[in-house]
């Protein structure tokens, strides 16, 4: 049997990792192990937790529908809060996105400021905004609406800006070449092209707002979250179950509808 021919110049299958990457990998693994230890998650704790969870679940069923009218009313308020906050946020996100987009911002300083604002609104969780607005405007849905609005300026502002940056530069250049103003270029060339992306982002924002608005009630920013908190505080688990199911159905419904719209658009 003859030996297979050796091909000169064939590159090796693997190249040896550098010392730096070996050290970095070891550090990453050590960090993950350390994180588990730090969080105090242990098998023994899980074993104790499971019966407690089972006990709570058994007390949740069957769900208590006695307060259903009140729950549905709160759910409606929650949804309204999400819609109002979301719409306000989306409207304000557009100009912020224009100022933050690479190809549209009038000045680098303005761009940096707009991007900073978007980053701030995105990185601070909506629950924290809700806490701030509860202090500013008092308990109730208005605080929730403002918190959702700020969160959505951050969320949609970033995606709107990215969509506008990715827009084909041909139509834009053609309009600039015929002497159109910046506003003309934005609304005639860029917005029509980005519209499907804008709508998709807006629908995601609405889904996110509906899910988020449930939590906001926990800190007093209105909606069904308050009901949920009270039910848990009073160990009224069967009412809590009804609330959770109602929220689940609402979120599912909103997601289904927005998914349909998105599909129709693409």
């Amino acid at each position, binding site marked *: 049997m003859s030996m297979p021919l050796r091909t000169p110049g064939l590159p090796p299958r693997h190249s040896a990792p550098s010392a730096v990457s070996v050290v970095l990998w070891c550090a990453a693994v050590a960090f993950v192990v350390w994180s588990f230890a730090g969080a105090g998650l242990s098998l023994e704790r899980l074993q104790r937790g499971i019966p407690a969870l089972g006990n709570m679940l058994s007390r949740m069923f069957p769900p208590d529908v006695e307060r259903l009218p009140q729950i549905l009313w709160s759910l409606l308020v929650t949804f309204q809060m999400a819609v109002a906050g979301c719409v306000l946020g989306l409207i304000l996100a557009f100009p912020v996105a224009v100022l933050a987009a690479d190809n549209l911002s009038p000045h680098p300083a303005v761009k940096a400021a707009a991007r900073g604002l978007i980053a701030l609104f995105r990185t601070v969780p909506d629950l924290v905004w809700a806490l701030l607005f509860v202090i500013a405007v008092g308990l109730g849905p208005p605080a929730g609406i403002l918190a959702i609005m700020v969160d959505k300026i951050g969320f949609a502002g970033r995606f709107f800006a990215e969509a506008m940056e990715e827009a084909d530069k*041909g*139509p834009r*250049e*053609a*309009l*600039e*070449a*015929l*002497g*159109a*103003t910046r*506003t*003309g270029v934005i*609304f*005639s*060339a860029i917005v*029509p*092209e980005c*519209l*499907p992306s804008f709508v998709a982002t807006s629908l995601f924002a609405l889904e996110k707002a509906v899910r988020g608005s449930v939590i906001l009630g926990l800190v007093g920013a209105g909606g069904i979250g308050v009901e949920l908190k009270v039910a848990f505080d009073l160990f009224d688990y069967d009412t809590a179950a009804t609330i959770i199911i109602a929220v689940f159905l609402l979120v599912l419904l909103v997601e289904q509808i927005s998914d349909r719209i998105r599909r129709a658009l693409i």
Partner: protein
Amino acid sequence: MQIVRPAEAFPATGTAATPAVAVVDLAKSFGERSVLAGVDLSIAQGESVALIGANGTGKSTFLRCLIRLTEPDRGTIRMLDDVVTDLGAAELRRFRSKVGIVFQKHNLVPRLSALTNVVHGIQSRSAGPRTWLQALAPREVREEAYACLAAVGLEDRALQRVGSLSGGQSQKVAVARMLMQRPRLILADEPDASLDPKAGEDVMDLLLRVAREKGLTLVTVSHRLEHAVRYSDRIIGFDAGRVALDTPSAAASVHELRSFFSDRTAA
């Protein structure tokens, strides 16, 4: 076979003493690479000029520099009574509104109707929400846009999305948008390049007809030498960022022009 030259069948009418375009020592580099190395060129009012040359010899950059879509590094451009190189931002916008340009790619908004894209041409003269969509435009603007579409033979496609039109049809819509501008001079950067031979010819026919009817100067960059010969009065050849050939089209043959190319690429 005798080649019929449309450019001769419809002779240029302009005889104005001052040239429509006068360029002196125009230069442009991108980093280390010099694309225009001191171009001097004068184009008469009403003349149809074809710019030819191999890829990277500076034809398109020259065209873009004329309306400062690309900023030149050096040189003076006089065009339609303006010293283009001296204009401020607002004056440049006003100047650009007088110059129609057709690109290799049609550069229309595919999701909008043909009519709306043509209405956008009015932005050379006015601004505001009523110039953004045909549905919002004033009656006289809609009528003019429709007439421009009719001039390129696409009035029956007015409400069709541009994205659903063929390449040739889209390029004609781009010409219609340019007409809406009521330009005083037309620039065309390889308007026939991405089209099949028939559609490319249709677009060139259209551009020359429009230019001749209105007595406008037409400057076309083209890689199709037979188009350069047929649709122009004069052929300018670019090489290494300079004008290396300047000949009346009537005296030029495709064969000779081809040798202009091969001599250069061999060098």
